[in-house]
């Protein structure tokens, strides 16, 4: 009797587990197939887009009429950005695939710059045609390699999930056709290193100037600590640790960490080896209830800058986040604001202490500039602006334009409806270099009950 009950209970249990297990298995499979399909889609789309890209570049080469060239180039640009986004959806991030992605970004940048240019006035130069031809050839090679991988994927039913597992388990011997295929693509692109892409390309190829304007001699570790203490305004009993930059850095710096034994406050900063300038500083501590206003915080930021001999700076922006004030300063020369030279500061609103300082941009680009005389008058520049805009303020400023060059502009701030805009008109040729819609505050979304 007892035995019979036991057998029934157990067998019900076994059958139940089996059913449950089978359902789980099916669900897991469904999810795996779903993920696999997403990968497959991204991959096949990528190969298709490279195909189209190759054809499109080919037809731009044959085009003579400029009126069809611009739309074709715009199309190339659109396809590259799609291809770029498809690459981003594949599990390749720990696989060296950068060169191919850079290649896509390069074509994109080139075609964008050329497409927005007025090709009637400023047609493609011979060099640019040549670089386009180079890109065409490169696209052909990538296309054929990818086609090859695609063929194998289709023929052998290869799965991207296996790529993921292979990369995750990091099995050196993992002989994965897809991984191999992509490595071949990457090698193909590498073979073309540094195609010369003409002047339209300054933007991407522009090398970081690596603090070329800094003055002063190399400092030692010891000096770095004393400089750090000065900037951090820390008490004498602070414990300092210093580390030198790794070999991969483009420039030399010391990382200094200052720990005060009494309070649990830690200040970290990086200081350039050359001259001992602070690149950034962060003091991490909890900020208590707000006691001082944003304006008081601004004054304490100004005092810090003055004390540390950062001169001729103008407050550009002030923003309060919770109990923190963040300020952006830009340098000023002959009453012209120089936006590339910017310093950011973070001030605690409980006692006005400087919690953050970031001068990377400033140190990289600040130097005495020869500011040209503006060719256009302010009134002439004003006529270049959309007449709907109500202009409230104006000044001269140097900004970086789309091609990463410094240009002298008239800056107009104005309103259109509820929004405020900042518009930069090139002071030499009246070009509208930049139009910015300034950020409005965002409503706090509460959970709707």
């Amino acid at each position: 009797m007892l035995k019979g009950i036991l057998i029934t209970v157990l067998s019900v249990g076994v059958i139940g587990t089996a059913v449950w297990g089978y359902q789980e298995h099916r669900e897991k499979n469904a999810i795996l197939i779903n993920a696999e399909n997403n990968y497959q889609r991204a991959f096949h789309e990528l190969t298709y887009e490279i195909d189209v890209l190759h054809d499109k570049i080919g037809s731009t080469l044959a085009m003579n009429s400029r009126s069809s060239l611009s739309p074709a180039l715009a199309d190339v640009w659109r396809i590259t950005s799609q291809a770029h986004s498809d690459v981003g959806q594949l599990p390749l991030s720990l696989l060296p695939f950068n060169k191919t992605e850079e290649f896509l970004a390069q074509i994109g940048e080139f075609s964008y710059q050329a497409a927005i240019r007025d090709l009637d006035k400023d047609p493609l130069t011979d060099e640019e045609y040549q670089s386009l031809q180079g890109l065409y050839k490169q696209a052909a090679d990538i296309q054929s390699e990818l086609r090859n991988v695609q063929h194998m994927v289709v023929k052998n039913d290869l799965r991207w999930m296996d790529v993921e597992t292979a990369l995750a388990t990091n099995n050196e011997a993992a002989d994965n056709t897809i991984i191999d295929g992509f490595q071949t693509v990457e090698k193909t692109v590498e073979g073309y290193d540094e195609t010369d892409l003409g002047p339209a390309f300054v933007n991407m190829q522009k090398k970081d100037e690596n603090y070329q304007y800094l003055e002063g001699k190399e400092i030692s570790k010891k000096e770095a600590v004393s400089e750090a203490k000065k900037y951090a305004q820390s008490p004498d009993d602070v414990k300092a640790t210093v580390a030198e930059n790794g070999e991969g850095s483009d420039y030399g710096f010391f990382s200094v960490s200052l720990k005060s034994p009494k309070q649990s406050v830690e200040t970290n900063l990086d200081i350039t080896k050359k001259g001992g300038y602070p690149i950034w500083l962060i003091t991490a501590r909890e900020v208590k209830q707000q006691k001082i206003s944003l304006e008081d915080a601004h004054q304490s930021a100004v005092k810090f800058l003055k004390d540390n001999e950062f001169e001729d700076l103008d407050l550009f922006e002030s923003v309060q986040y919770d109990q923190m004030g963040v300020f952006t300063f830009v340098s000023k020369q002959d009453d012209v604001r120089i936006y590339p030279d910017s310093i950011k500061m973070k001030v605690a609103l409980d006692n006005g202490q400087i919690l953050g300082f970031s001068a990377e941009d400033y140190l990289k680009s600040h130097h005495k500039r020869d500011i040209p005389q503006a060719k256009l008058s302010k009134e002439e520049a004003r006529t270049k602006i959309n007449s709907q805009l109500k202009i409230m303020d104006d000044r001269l400023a140097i900004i970086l334009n789309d091609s990463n060059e410094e240009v002298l502009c008239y800056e107009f701030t104005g309103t259109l409806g509820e929004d405020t805009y900042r518009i930069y008109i090139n002071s030499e040729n009246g070009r509208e270099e930049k139009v910015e819609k300034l950020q409005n505050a965002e409503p706090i979304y509460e959970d709707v009950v």
Partner: protein
Amino acid sequence: MKQLLMFTKVMLILLLIATAIPMAELDKSANAFSNQVIRQGAIGDDVIELQARLQYLGFYNGKIDGVFGWGTYWALRNFQYEFGLDIDGLAGSSTKNKLVSASNYDKQYVQNQINQGNSFTHYGGTDLNQQAPANNGGSNQNDGNASSGNSGGGATSANVPSGFSENDIQIMANAVYGEARGEPYIGQVAVAAVILNRVESASFPDTVYGVIFEPRAFTAVADGQIWLTPNETAREAVIDAINGWDPSGDALYYFNPDTATSPWIWTRPQIKKIGQHIFCK
């Protein structure tokens, strides 16, 4: 001689008192505002009062949300222009005094409306009943301090760094918390900075979301730790990184040498080590 000295002294004291009386009176009339100068970018009750008073006079037509944004800035400058004050866009004592004497501020009414989450106005010469539509609250109910870590008084909006929304910051904070919650603060800022450096770089996706959700890019995304609720520190680290702090030294990758599985990551040029993470190009 002594008498003369005495006389001057008395006169001086009298003079001091005489100047002090009107000043004290001015102080009193402005006591609704705190005595701090209000500048663009500020948030809190002072800003609410400023916006309400400017709206009372018809200079400000935007939402009374407690954030000193561009709309408030231009309204204040117009006010300063019309009333012959220095046009500096700062609400200092003279501007505040002028505002207080020229307008009424129904604090009770404004605070109530804000607490109920109503949309409302505060124009002078209009019946209060007509300034708020009956019972439309609920869309963004603001019950006191429940708003996510905001200490900006009763503000119903928040400042966000240009180009980012509060939700973007939240997702990034999720990623930073999932990846680096045990790390020192600068380590967290550095991880956020790496995400932003990747957005800038040509060899990575061009959006924050593309970078974060790129398959196999971040372990916290792969194993679901990204969906843990982040703390305030992670959020603050993200805001710092967006505002331009980059402790990583322009790094594009980082890894934990104890747990890194890919041998390839060791071939990247290393920049520095923060906490457990090595940051590299």
